[in-house]
């Protein structure tokens, strides 16, 4: 566990593996998460923000990392999303947070991603955004959405 979890008041917890072998399957975890949130009956605008941010994170794991996972903690007053991968990590997180900065390859751009908007968009969509990373180790993101 890289970013600390708080297990108090958890109504539901779900976790999803994100593999990197098949780009066409990226987004399946976010799609499942969105359906769960809809079943619970959360307000559609917050579901939309959670879905966008989670999908951006899932795409990042799929295109940049060697694999990772997404955990969703649903609480009475908020939803917490943890996204962690197993490397290669981000050398300069501040630079990575800048709109338009990307290390994505030409191949990734041809697939419609790598515009350098993912991390800033996650921050924009969430009420609280935390990121930490260590080169050759991991990248970990925590996003909180207030209900």
């Amino acid at each position, binding site marked *: 566990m890289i970013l600390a979890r708080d297990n108090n008041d958890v109504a539901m917890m779900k976790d999803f593996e994100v593999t990197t072998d098949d*780009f*066409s*399957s*990226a*987004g399946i975890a*976010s*799609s499942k998460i*969105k359906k769960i949130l809809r079943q619970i009956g959360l307000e*559609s605008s917050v579901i*939309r923000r959670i*879905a*966008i941010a*989670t*999908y*951006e994170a899932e*795409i990042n794991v799929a295109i940049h990392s060697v694999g990772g996972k997404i955990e969703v903690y649903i609480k009475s007053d908020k939803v917490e999303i943890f996204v962690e991968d197993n490397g290669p990590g981000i050398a300069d997180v501040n630079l990575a947070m800048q709109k338009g900065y990307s290390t994505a390859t030409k191949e990734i*751009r041809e*697939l*419609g*991603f*790598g*515009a*350098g*908007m*993912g991390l*800033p*968009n996650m921050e*924009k969509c969430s009420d609280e955004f935390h990121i930490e990373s260590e080169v050759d180790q991991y990248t970990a993101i925590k996003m909180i959405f207030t209900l």
Partner: protein
Amino acid sequence: MKLREIAELLNCEVLVGEKFLDREVKYAFGSDLMSDVLAYTEEDTVLLTGLCNNQVIRTAEMLDLKSIVFVRGKCPTEEIVNLAKEDDILILRTEHTMYSASGILYSHGLQGTAI
């Protein structure tokens, strides 16, 4: 603007979701970069794109977009169409380029999103 009007103006082929043609959209957004679509698109928007992969549908799903127009005659695979069907998304296909399709819709009063 009704999606039916968009389909007529662009001489579209309806690939899936014909029953949703009476839905209304306020804006259109044209891009082949899903990163930008995710960052800038409002809910009541029709997406125009020449990108043809699963992630176009996933992007629309996350944003609650109800319709996608594939421009430049791009033809999505059966897998893509089935994914759209699951998500209740109307898929249209036009031979127009992105520029022409955008121009036709804009000149008939369909606005772009403010970013």
